[in-house]
């Protein structure tokens, strides 16, 4: 039996335009509303931003409550896993402890030398930046977006583009600010591009995220001499991030330089946000 063009048209109209059994809205109306919402996302005005911030803050709270069961299950699993691995971890820690003991004397010497050199070039040793700490509220690792939500927003003067640190290491930047929450885009995300400088080779490049895989260095000079273990710092070239914030270590693999981050992005509970330079007191 052939299906005529009219039959297809009637079926499509029936599926998209008619409200089905117990349906309050037609699919067509909701599709138009979704397109409108996507379009509105591109418009930035204060009233719209406030509505968006309110919606997002409310959903984040709801999400926090809804994720309690999964959080409890995963923490219980982690608890048992840690107990099972206790013996092997103990041996690893002993080994690590011995290595660290050997390195202490070396590190003390380097620290002393570093502070003497800083004095020599009259650099201010104490940090001039203004930090605010925050807790990770939601860490829903989307396969398309590596980010998490923290529990402070414009109520604590957080703004888009601010640097986010785990301890003293760079992990990402603020990309979305609501009143009580903000979203942090991690360096591992596909959309993350950070200007960096390598040390000691001194090459400038862009640290580019690749989702689950380690980030890589792009736009390196052709004859760079980056070695395994070179340190990667923010260069501060674009003027948004402070220069000299440590990010990770270089790993040279064939033609590519990947970066092993100093922070484990899966294990972050608290972060520091750089609010900007402290005002200098005269």
């Amino acid at each position, binding site marked *: 039996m052939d299906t005529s063009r009219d039959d297809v048209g009637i079926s499509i109209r029936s599926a998209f335009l008619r409200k089905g059994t117990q349906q309050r809205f037609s699919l067509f109306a909701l599709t138009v509303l*979704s397109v409108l919402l996507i379009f509105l996302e591109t418009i930035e005005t204060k009233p719209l931003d406030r509505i968006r911030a309110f919606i997002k803050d409310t959903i984040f709270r709801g999400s926090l409550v809804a994720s309690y069961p999964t959080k409890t299950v995963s923490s219980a699993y982690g608890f048992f896993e840690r107990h099972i691995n206790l013996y092997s971890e103990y041996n690893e820690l002993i080994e690590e402890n011995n290595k660290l003991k050997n390195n202490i004397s070396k590190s003390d010497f380097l620290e002393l030398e570093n502070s003497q050199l800083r004095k020599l070039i009259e650099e201010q040793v104490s940090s001039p930046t203004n930090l605010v700490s925050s807790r990770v509220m939601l860490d829903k690792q989307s396969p398309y977006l590596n980010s998490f939500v923290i529990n402070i927003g414009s109520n604590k003067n957080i703004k888009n583009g601010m640097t986010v640190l785990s301890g003293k290491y760079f992990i990402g930047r603020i990309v979305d600010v609501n009143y009580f929450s903000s979203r942090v885009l991690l360096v591992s995300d596909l959309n993350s591009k950070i200007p960096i400088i390598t040390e000691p080779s001194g090459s400038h490049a862009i640290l580019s995220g690749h989702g689950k895989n380690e980030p890589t260095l792009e736009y390196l000079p052709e004859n760079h001499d980056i070695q395994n273990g070179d340190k990667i710092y923010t260069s501060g070239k674009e003027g948004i991030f402070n220069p000299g914030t440590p990010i990770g270590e270089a790993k040279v693999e064939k033609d590519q330089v990947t970066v092993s981050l100093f922070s484990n992005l899966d294990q972050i509970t608290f972060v520091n946000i750089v609010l900007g330079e402290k005002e200098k007191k005269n």
Partner: protein
Amino acid sequence: MAFHIKDFKTKFFELLPLLLLFFISLNGSSIINIKFFSVNIHYILVYYWVLRHPRSLGYGFIFLSGIISDVVLGFPLGINALSLLFVAGVAAYVRVVTVRITLINDWISFVPALLFANIVYFISLYLSDYSVDYFYLLKNSAFTLIFYPVLWGIFSLIINFSKS
């Protein structure tokens, strides 16, 4: 008493798809990643229930669940909602044009639903200036299609429970 328990059971199984829908979006677990495997259970859930039992899953709820997913996963508002509505649209069309309920029919008609949803997803993200891992998108679609019969079986059991 027995009547009340049966009444409660029927109500619970009727509401189960809706509860699952909102749990998935609020929990940010629309995509399950286990090592190399990655399955979009949000698409399967919407497709199955709109196709088989549309009274349990209203379009308004599907839209709302998409908006929640967008917020939780950090996408511009409307992207997930739009792709979920396309999945629901294809399911509604297939419901109108098919008579017999078989796994094979459902499974084959799920292919265009996935294609439409992913095209919409990709175009909306592209227009919103988001980078997408194309290989991941392809892999996710393939595994979602492969995994469909498993959830089809589970959801059919839920429908049978609610009827018994």
